[in-house]
């Protein structure tokens, strides 16, 4: 969540096909979410990328 202190979700992405990774994440509440990708490349180099997902609606 964009609010400090809210419980984060963790999921490991699995390679579905070459270059394509899938992860299952269930947002626990409505609002603005942020996905942080922690990637380890084949070379061992580590990357971090942020994807903002705003306006998640309640069920």
């Amino acid at each position: 969540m964009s609010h400090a202190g809210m419980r984060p979700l963790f999921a490991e992405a699995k390679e579905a096909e070459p270059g394509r990774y899938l992860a299952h994440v269930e947002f626990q509440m409505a609002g603005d979410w942020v996905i942080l990708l922690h990637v380890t490349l084949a070379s061992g180099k580590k990357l971090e990328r942020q994807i903002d997902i705003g306006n998640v609606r309640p069920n």
Partner: protein
Amino acid sequence: MNPSSIPALETPESLPFDLMRVPGLGHLFRSRYARPILQTPLLALSVVMILHGLFGPQLAPKNLATTLSWLHFRGVLVLVLLCAGNFFCLACPFMLVRQWARRLFKPRFAWPRALRNKWLSVGLFVLILFTYELFDLWSSPWWTAWLIIAYFLAVLVVDGFFKHASFCKFVCPIGQFNFVASTLSPFEVKVREQDVCTRCHTKDCIRGRREPVTDLVTIRGCELALFQPSKVGNMDCTFCLDCVHACPHDNIGILSRLPGSELLVDPLRSGIGYFSRRKDLAALAIVFTFGALLNAFGMVSPVYAVERWLGQLLHVSREAPVLGLIFTVFLIVEPVLLLGMAAWLMRAWAGTRRALLPLAVRYTYGLVPLGFGMWLAHYCFHFLTGLYTLIPVTQNAVASLGRPFLGEPRWNLTGLPANVVQVVEVGFLVLGFAGSLAVTYGLAEDDSPHRPLRAFLPWAAVCLVLWFASMWLLFQPMEMRATLMNG
């Protein structure tokens, strides 16, 4: 009811408990360096928060400025107010900087007479609540850091120009929150024996202790104009302990009392006057109580539906006017209607002779426990569910300096489960509701000794409405967005 009839714990068999008599704690509080000792760590923490807010990661859950401000500080603040007293003002880091600044330049002006009330601070309190929602301060480390910087600058400007504790008494919105909430605290800075004060000729607790030859003040008296022998309750008391240090008879302690007992009485209070004649104080109590619900309303799903509906109705796409309207309804229209109707009904049913406005002002203070219950529920939700987040955020901050000696951030550390915390929240709301019922019944008994129930019922109905509203808010799905109007 006069102050002597306050339900206190002062019978010879059960003297009030005095925090100053606790070994270690009493020694610390008696020390002239007690305040700087407590202020210094908080000042250091403030500097860290400012630096991390400005230069650290701009994602709120990973930043110390937002995590510490909006989770830990607020949670600890309300819990300390509930369990002890206004000890945050005692340890206020802003005042430490002010003290240093006052060594360089002495304030020359008295605070303007027209502003010697709470109206300015009520306005600032509302402004903080408004900007919190409008700019989503909780999601912005950068804005949070600037809010802390602005606070330091405001203290330096106000207390740089104006004598005494003008900022604390007339400006500081956090201080006003603490003053109102501490009316429900179990401890109060108070004289131990009135007789000792009666015999005292120097009145150092208010005048300060002075050098005999030069007449220069060596130990300050109360900067908030609270004369200890006639001080009643915690309103306007920053727990700075200046009076404790100045009293030549060691006659001032931090004494236990029945929480909220000061709301049951209406004596002439030193530095304040009568609660029932202070419309500005009543306005502060209204913002404190109704603002608690409003602040929580800003975090649940229905607020977005209401905003969209209002936006379409008014044909506006900007958030400020819509939010302004919601604030007007919550903080002006709703209190005026509820308190006005209750006062009118009380006059009609119980035959009270007071005019409507003084009656509404008097009973407004009875709603403070409900408001405090809501602040406790709201702030403790964030604090307890995010209790351990300080660990990974600190680990991450240290690691970003290139020396990860605290280890890799353990982001899976969060806090207590939400369903457990919800039970605690309900407890706070029930406690607040019971407190408000007790205070309003006490006032009704005092105003209408022959028909207390008739006088009480309208106010009980107001308490019930607010309590139901609080409970409804508590069980709403949370939704936290930084883009209110775009949904």
